[in-house]
């Protein structure tokens, strides 16, 4: 594909998905399954969630319970497999990494499908589609089909066509197909077949004389908007070839959540990537919690740009989690497993994490042995509550709590939409003085970043870290890592701009912070004698015990703390940016 050709053509969208993903993933490692009817069963071997074409041909419906299939399995030669989400997550990550080499503009839409931005002449696009298909088959071992068109909706339709009509060889470029053939296809397919049209809408469309996809593509977009919705209007425009559905970087799929972004400026160090992964880990946690889900597997990946073929690196890790969890600490730690694979100096254009094997929260009570200390203390919901009130970035584990000042900023806002803008839709419970996302008056720049990231490894520098925080009006909570004896820790950062904020912040976190501190206090009382903390200037000095945000600030320079928790809030008046709440909970 030559450069001038690239410039001449409008961007198009390639939709790539793995055929019968779970079944194909299993077949990649067991060729004896080739040609045999295979179903993959859901969690606890409940229902058939994936069927190979042979199984579909037997008339096995999706979601058919295994107990209904089992009596006839032998007669059919049916192979039933339990879900192996670790495997699927790994295969998915491989497929996505590989596809990422063909476009810097990749939207992982679900565990087995992705949209890619592509450019070129029709023949080049077809060749690209075939190359991607062959590469995924060869390098990863699973079959994919590719649909390429001007819009996402048409790309999905083209892909569907490529799957069902062997003449395409698995790759369909919409614009390369004669218009008459396209119309025949669209005329034959019911509107229900199109991406984005729900079953319940079909009847209403039918009532307006819109039966086929062709009918819908010829409908008046304005009428559709008025009678149906903007969403439906977009579908019409997309069918007409006008792209209306933007590329997204995060989306709930069937069985996984993906957080992935391309960076405006390439990341070249594990240090910076650590921050990115921390943010993803906490986004994943928040999203899982929102949907009452827990994940069992986390995959983290990074990739260099496809346009930089001289310096390629596509590291990824698949981490089975110790238990189904939505805990931000565990997820963030798991994501950090990618870091040892990062080559310093290589320019990473994007990174992401994916959580898979999702299951509803509280479905099965875990054995107390596996209970997670962070979940016990509700760290996740604490983070969420603060974030809801003060905006994303007002609180986070380690670097994820920093809203700005990092140089790896994303092409789009890194942090998912936080509080709504001033006035509109604000929940009444929100403090009136806090209109939406705000900047926190924290130190900006690399020096603080270093300190923040230092963790317990640099205990001697702790004093400086704290000093910087206090001076800036930030706060720090550190709580113990999962493994006893581990020296790595996570900081939980709180920040507030003025005194009212401190009060409301206290209100939000106070009680629970106390629980957190008290809890740790009891367990790790003897553990922290090596830790020195110096706090910034404050109205008074005292050691603060674990009983809450008590308007006292420890300020003995280099003072040795003989107890496990420090909680302090500076409520001094008038000092701009001086209001802060901070706490330290530490243990070895």
């Amino acid at each position, binding site marked *: 594909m030559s450069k001038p050709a690239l410039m001449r053509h409008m961007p198009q969208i390639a939709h790539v998905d793995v055929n019968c993903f779970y079944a194909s993933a299993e077949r990649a*490692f067991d060729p004896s399954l080739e040609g045999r009817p295979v179903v993959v069963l859901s969690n606890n071997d409940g229902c058939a969630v994936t069927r190979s074409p042979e199984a579909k041909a037997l008339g096995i419906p999706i979601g058919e319970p295994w107990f209904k299939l089992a009596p006839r399995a032998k007669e059919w030669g049916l192979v039933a497999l339990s879900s192996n989400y670790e495997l699927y997550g790994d295969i998915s990550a491989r497929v996505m990494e590989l596809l990422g080499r063909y476009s810097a503009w990749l939207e992982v839409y679900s565990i087995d499908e992705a949209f890619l931005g592509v450019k070129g002449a029709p023949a080049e696009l077809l060749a690209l589609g075939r190359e991607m298909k062959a590469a995924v088959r060869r390098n990863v071992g699973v079959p994919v089909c590719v649909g390429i068109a001007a819009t996402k909706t048409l790309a999905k339709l083209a892909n569907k066509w490529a799957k069902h009509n062997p003449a395409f060889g698995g790759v369909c470029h919409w614009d390369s197909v004669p218009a008459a053939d396209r119309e025949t296809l669209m005329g034959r397919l019911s509107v229900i077949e199109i991406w984005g049209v729900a079953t319940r809408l079909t009847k209403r469309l039918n009532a307006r004389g819109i039966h086929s996809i062709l009918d819908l593509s010829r409908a008046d977009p304005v009428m559709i908007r008025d009678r149906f919705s903007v969403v439906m209007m977009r579908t019409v425009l997309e069918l007409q070839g006008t792209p209306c559905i933007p590329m997204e970087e995060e989306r709930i799929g069937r069985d996984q959540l993906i957080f992935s972004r391309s960076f405006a400026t390439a990341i070249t160090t594990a240090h910076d990537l650590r921050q990115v992964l921390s943010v993803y880990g906490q986004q994943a946690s928040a999203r899982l919690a929102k949907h009452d889900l827990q994940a069992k597997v986390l995959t983290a990946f990074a990739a260099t740009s496809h346009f930089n073929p001289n310096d390629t690196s596509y590291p990824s890790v698949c*981490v089975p989690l110790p238990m189904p969890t939505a805990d931000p600490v565990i997820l963030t730690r798991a994501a950090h497993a990618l870091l040892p694979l990062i080559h310093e100096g290589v320019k990473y254009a994007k990174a992401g994490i994916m959580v898979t094997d999702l299951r509803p929260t509280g479905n099965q009570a875990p054995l107390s042995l596996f209970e997670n200390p962070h979940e016990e203390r509700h760290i996740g919901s604490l983070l969420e509550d603060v974030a809801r009130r003060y905006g994303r970035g007002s609180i986070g584990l380690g670097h994820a709590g920093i809203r700005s000042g990092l140089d790896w900023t994303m092409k789009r806002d890194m942090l998912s939409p936080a509080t709504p803008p001033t006035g509109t839709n604000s929940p009444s419970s929100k403090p009136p003085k806090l209109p939406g996302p705000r900047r926190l008056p924290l130190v900006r720049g690399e020096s603080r970043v270093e300190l923040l990231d230092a963790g317990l490894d640099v205990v001697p520098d702790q004093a400086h870290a704290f000093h910087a925080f206090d001076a800036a009006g930030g706060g720090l909570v550190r709580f113990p890592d999962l493994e006893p004896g581990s020296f790595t820790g996570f900081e939980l950062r709180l920040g507030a701009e003025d005194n009212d904020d401190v009060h409301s912040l206290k209100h939000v976190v106070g009680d629970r912070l106390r629980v957190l501190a008290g809890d740790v206090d009891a367990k790790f009382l003897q553990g922290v004698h090596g830790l020195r903390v110096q706090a910034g200037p404050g109205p008074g000095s005292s050691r603060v015990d674990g009983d809450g945000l008590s308007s006292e600030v420890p300020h003995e320079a280099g003072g040795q703390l003989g107890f496990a928790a420090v909680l302090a809030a500076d409520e001094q008046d008038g000092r701009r940016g001086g209001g802060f709440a901070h706490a330290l909970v530490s243990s070895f």
Partner: protein
Amino acid sequence: MGVTVGPRVIDAGVSLLSVLISPVPVAAGFPSPAQDYFDGRIDLNEHLIKDITSTYVVRVSGDSMERAGISDGDELIVNRALEPRDGCVVIAVLDGELTVKRLRITSTGVVLQAENPRYPDIRVPSLSELTIWGVATRCLHHV
């Protein structure tokens, strides 16, 4: 010789695969001048895996590759992205099973060769009639 292929995915990086390499050469003779430049650790992931996207680890069962130093229970690092060439140790699909053999491509045809006289060669008319699952690049031999 059969191969058990993981649904065991590579979880490289989860466990620490860095090891200390002895700075002193194992062979007898003069000490290596290189020992002065010992720089500590080698990352086995980096050392063994060139393209993680297309690399899988498989476990070998059977003794048909004994003479190639591949024993029962060893693990092979397999890169699917490599083109199978004459002389490569490959994972091939035979009768729906994965098998490890040495690939011989000659003017008279393609042969899957065992590295053990007790196993016969398997002749294939052409490469196109053979599914090569991947090319083995390293054997992790249990000593």
